[in-house]
């Protein structure tokens, strides 16, 4: 064989490449491809926080964190009785003992009294298999704010271990209805922690209150009130309690939703005899009609990019979900699965659509799917579920279940992890508030 110079260079090049490859990759390293995995809640342990005897009466942040993590559906916290030890410092941790339980993450912490009657609360997140601290924080906490501080820690832990924003410091709004004298009822607009705790009443009324909706900044809530005998849409500032009537057209004023930038309100008006979808420009009061159809069009929701609205319409017979493109006015039906799909809502990340799905077997359940997908995934509810809403991180759905209860269901596991109920009251129409500004 005769080597031309060209061949020679090529050969040299190949040799050099080979050398490079052997240098880059350790020769003959055994190679394994992991082509799958499991989907399981992450095993974690939140050790009861150490605290001086004087602070025994203060709620244990560890318990709140444990519940948060369990509620998220992503974690499987082990109960304190199963814990092999209760360390409060990393030096005291016997990692092997925790590994025996399969625990992957360990949270330890302490509550200390601060001078001003408040506390210092600290936690450390430890990786049991790497045997190292991967997160930690100490906060000064005013008296009575232990829950909020614990939720904050839950957010950090959740974010550190899932890569997603925690929602434990967010709020939910809902309507609570208490029976009053005779046939009368008492309606409250309330805002609470995501888990229903620390509830505050924003508005009480003897007339129905409906459809609370958060402004994107979380500083205002729009709702429907019948306080004047007929429906009107109000917008109320949370901090000041100040409110104004945004819409009081003849007929129906319902289902308000703030646009993603917060300057517009989608709503349903029947001022022209038939419920239609409109967009109200809050500055200036311009009203833009979106639908024009003899059937009922209601329950609008903004796509997160503000380019479209989804709504419920029975124009095809039964209620189904339609989408209107704001730029062209084009309206298309997007649900075909089942005889009843209503109350659609976008996930904040714009990828999913949740709705109330009426199946042929009877009953109404919460379902969700990819925006343009076909496959509906159902949340394991009790058949009388309505008003689904996504958590701001798009990972959970809060909805109204039968019996006046609210139910929290993480996506993926598709079953309820938390029921919020209140004896003597029915809770309805939950609306999950946005993430607090950073």
């Amino acid at each position, binding site marked *: 064989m005769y080597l031309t110079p060209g061949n020679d260079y090529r050969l040299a090049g190949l040799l050099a490449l080979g050398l490079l490859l052997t240098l880059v*990759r*350790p020769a*003959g*390293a*055994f*190679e*394994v*491809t*992991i*082509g*799958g*995995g*499991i*989907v*399981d*809640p*992450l095993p974690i342990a939140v050790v009861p926080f150490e605290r001086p005897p004087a602070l025994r009466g203060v709620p244990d942040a560890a318990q709140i964190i444990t519940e948060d993590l369990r509620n998220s559906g*992503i974690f499987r916290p082990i109960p304190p009785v199963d814990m092999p030890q209760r360390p409060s410092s990393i030096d005291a941790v016997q990692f092997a003992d925790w*590994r025996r339980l*399969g625990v*992957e993450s360990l949270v330890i912490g302490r509550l200390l009294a601060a001078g001003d009657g408040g506390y210092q609360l600290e936690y450390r997140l430890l*990786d049991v*298999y*790497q045997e190292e601290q991967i997160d930690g924080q100490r906060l000064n906490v005013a008296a009575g704010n232990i829950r909020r501080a614990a939720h904050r820690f839950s957010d950090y832990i959740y974010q550190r*271990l*899932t*890569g*997603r924003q925690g929602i434990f410091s967010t709020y939910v709004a809902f309507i609570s209805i208490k029976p009053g004298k005779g046939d009368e009822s008492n309606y409250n607009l309330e805002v609470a922690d995501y888990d229903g705790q620390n509830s505050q009443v924003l508005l009480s009324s003897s007339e129905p209150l409906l459809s609370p909706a958060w402004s994107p900044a979380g500083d205002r809530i729009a709702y429907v009130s019948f306080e004047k005998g007929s429906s009107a849409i109000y917008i109320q500032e949370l901090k000041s309690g100040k409110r104004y009537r945004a819409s009081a057209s003849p007929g129906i004023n319902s289902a308000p939703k703030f646009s993603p930038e917060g300057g517009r309100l989608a709503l349903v008006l029947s001022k022209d005899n038939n419920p239609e979808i409109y967009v109200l420009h809050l500055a200036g009061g311009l009203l833009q009609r979106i639908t024009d159809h003899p059937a009922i069009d209601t329950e609008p929701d903004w796509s997160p990019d503000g380019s479209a609205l989804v709504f419920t319409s029975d124009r095809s017979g039964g209620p189904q979900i339609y989408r209107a493109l704001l730029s062209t006015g084009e309206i298309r039906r997007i649900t075909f699965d089942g005889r009843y799909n209503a109350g659609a809502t976008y996930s904040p990340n714009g990828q999913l659509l949740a709705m109330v799905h009426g199946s042929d077997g009877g009953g109404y359940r919460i379902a969700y799917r990819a925006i343009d997908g076909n496959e509906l995934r159902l949340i394991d509810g009790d058949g009388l579920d309505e008003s689904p809403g996504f958590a701001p991180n798009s*990972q959970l759905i809060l909805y109204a279940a039968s019996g006046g209860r609210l139910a929290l269901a993480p996506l*993926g596991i598709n079953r309820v992890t938390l029921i919020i109920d209140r004896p003597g009251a029915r809770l309805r129409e939950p609306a999950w508030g946005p993430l607090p500004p950073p």
Partner: protein
Amino acid sequence: MGATRRRTGVFLPGLYSLLLHAVLAAALVLTLEFDTSRELPAPPPERVVQAVSVDSNEVEQELRQIKEREQRKVAEQRRREEALKQKEREAARKEKRAEEEKRKAARVRKEAEEKRRQEEQKQRNLQRQRKEEEKKLAELKRQQKEAENQKKLEEERAKRAAAEKKRAEEEKKRVEEEKKRIELEKKQIEEEKKRAEAEKRKAAEEARKEKERLEEQRLEAQRRNDEALKPVIAGKIDTRVRRFFNQLNLEAGLTCELEVKFSPDGQVLDVRISRSSGSEIFDSRAITAVRKASPLPLQEWGVDLQTFKRINLENTRFVFNPW
């Protein structure tokens, strides 16, 4: 015995001479008797004085008395002696004659004896002379013989020396030759050895090559075996690690690579991210999966220490690509 004989030899002539002397002495005494009677000298008085050394008058006195007594005695003696002498002279004369006769006979005998003795002496001298001559001759002969012997000895020595020299030379030559022979032999042995060594080397080389060939074959078979085993083990590891790789909430499409060090008993010793997925969560779920899967039941899977080393499980690259 010889000594005794010799002593007897000496003794006999000695006896003779003793007898001869005795005869001569007797003759002399007789002669002297005659002489004394004729001219007996008075004992010198000084001799007496000298003999008895006493001093003083007492001694003088004594001496005088003794002298008087002596003189009387001597006179008496003389008289008696005179009478006696007379008689004796008479007897003596007779005696003298007998004696003379006897002497004459004795002289004759003596002369004969002397003559005989002289003759004997002469004979003895002669004999001695002869003996001496003989002795001389013998000595001469001995000397001659000795000289001869010496000469002979010298000659022999010379001869021997020559022979020795010759022998030495021959020996030297022989040694030389032996040396040469040995040298040659040595050389031959050396060459033989070299040849044998070369042969041995060649054989060893061939054996080595054969061994290498066999080893190569064995290794090749082993390699094939290992290559066949690798996907099986990789599959088992995949199955095991999957059970611990929690994909919950992981962003789809991500992949990562880990370099994992195992001990031969399947324990995870070290995990290093060699290519991150870009997501800390994904990477750490992968790491946790590997660590939770530790130890791999390698023995159960039939992976012994040798296999472990050969397929380099010690350094395992995990590619997490669950999508």
